[in-house]
């Protein structure tokens, strides 16, 4: 058996005790170092196991609490966002028709419908892409600028949504932000241009949960309406349409009938 005792210093003074313990009469050898620091503290595994149990209990409680805090959508914490007043798009030289092809979420948000996390959370009732599509089509329809299908449209819009909801604020208010880019494509020529638009809104904070929900909803609605207005009444859209819009090819005149020569 290898000896791990220190070779110098206190090794000089130790006592070897011999005794019998237990029923089986196993000889117990107890090396007692009278001056060695190695003998000062004996490991008490019973105490350690108590500490471990306490730590386990605490971590379990924390996990359960965290799971309970994770907001879940319920009817009472779900808001319905829609464009409150249809934005009238700008007028173009000729009546143009737009078709909303695709709306893609590019926010990179794992929970796009969760707009406010604290106090049980506030959720949107639909995905932001759906809200965006509905808002845009409503506005275009109100001005009779919505094409029934892709074929009949003068321009096809593909929307990329970058942000929809609340953004980081000063802490004294809610900062609503809607940001998107639209690819305006002329299906006849195949040429396209990107138009970006954004809408912001600031609303005061509230203490009561009901008021928080009201303010958040109002804030997002305002920011959404603002973004749609920024897009539909923006100079960027006007410039893009001006560049991409080519006059329709004149229809070929019917073949002129040769006059019948009368003899």
């Amino acid at each position, binding site marked *: 058996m290898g000896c791990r005792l220190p070779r110098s210093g206190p090794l000089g003074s130790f006592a070897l005790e011999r005794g019998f313990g237990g029923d089986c009469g196993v000889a117990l050898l107890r090396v007692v170092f009278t001056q060695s620091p190695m003998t000062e503290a004996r490991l008490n595994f019973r105490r350690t196991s108590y500490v471990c149990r306490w730590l386990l209990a605490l971590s379990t409680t924390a996990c359960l609490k965290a799971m309970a805090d994770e907001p879940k959508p319920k009817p009472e914490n779900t808001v319905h966002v829609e464009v409150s007043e249809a934005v009238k798009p*700008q007028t173009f030289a000729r009546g143009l028709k737009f078709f909303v092809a695709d709306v893609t979420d590019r926010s990179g948000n794992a929970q796009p419908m969760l707009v406010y996390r604290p106090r049980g959370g506030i959720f949107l009732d639909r995905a932001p892409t759906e809200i965006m599509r509905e808002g845009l089509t409503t506005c275009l329809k109100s001005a009779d600028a919505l094409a029934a299908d892709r074929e009949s449209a003068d321009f096809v819009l593909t929307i990329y949504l970058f942000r929809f909801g609340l*953004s*980081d*604020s*000063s*802490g*004294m*208010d809610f*900062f609503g*932000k809607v940001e998107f880019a639209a690819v305006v494509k002329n299906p006849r020529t195949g040429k396209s241009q990107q138009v970006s638009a*954004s*809408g*912001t*809104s*600031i609303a005061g904070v509230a203490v009561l949960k009901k008021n928080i929900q009201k303010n958040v909803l109002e804030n997002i609605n305002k920011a959404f309406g*603002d973004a749609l*207005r*920024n897009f539909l*009444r*923006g*100079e*960027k859209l*006007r410039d893009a349409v001006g560049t991409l819009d080519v006059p329709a090819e004149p229809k070929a005149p019917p073949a002129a009938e040769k006059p019948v020569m009368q003899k």
Partner: protein
Amino acid sequence: MRKIRMAILVAAFGLVLPGFAKDPEPQFKSVEAKHFTKSEGVELSPEFTDYLYAELRAELTKAKLFGQVIGEGEVVDAADAPASIVIEGGITEYKKGSAVKDALIGFTAGWRSLKVETTIKRRSDQKVIVSPQIHVRASPRWKDKVLAKEAAQQIVKEIKKALKDSGTGT
């Protein structure tokens, strides 16, 4: 006793009356706030300028001087252009401040500081109405966006003052 009652009644009526008064007519048809640019060396996130823009628009709406607060790059009818203004500006300086100085010395030492140059122009002829220089400070313990809120309030205050000095402003 009767006289006192009458006096109270008159005073109450006098206090309530301004509440029924109509809001003053807006002096301008529309105002357009643009995103502020950042000078070289200004270490602020793009979100800060977004927030400043949003705060400025919120403050302009509150001021009730303008018929409509339009977003950046929105079209305005040619007829409305003479009665419309555009707010442009740039952040020229930003100091982060020091939380240690603020805690040890106090008395606004180590506070954050923001300097903003603003130009308010008439849309039709691009005539500069006023160009205030704003300097705001805040404790480093607060978020930097507090500075944006303060700056927006000061810009609107300056606009109000300039319009008051120049009469109608149109």
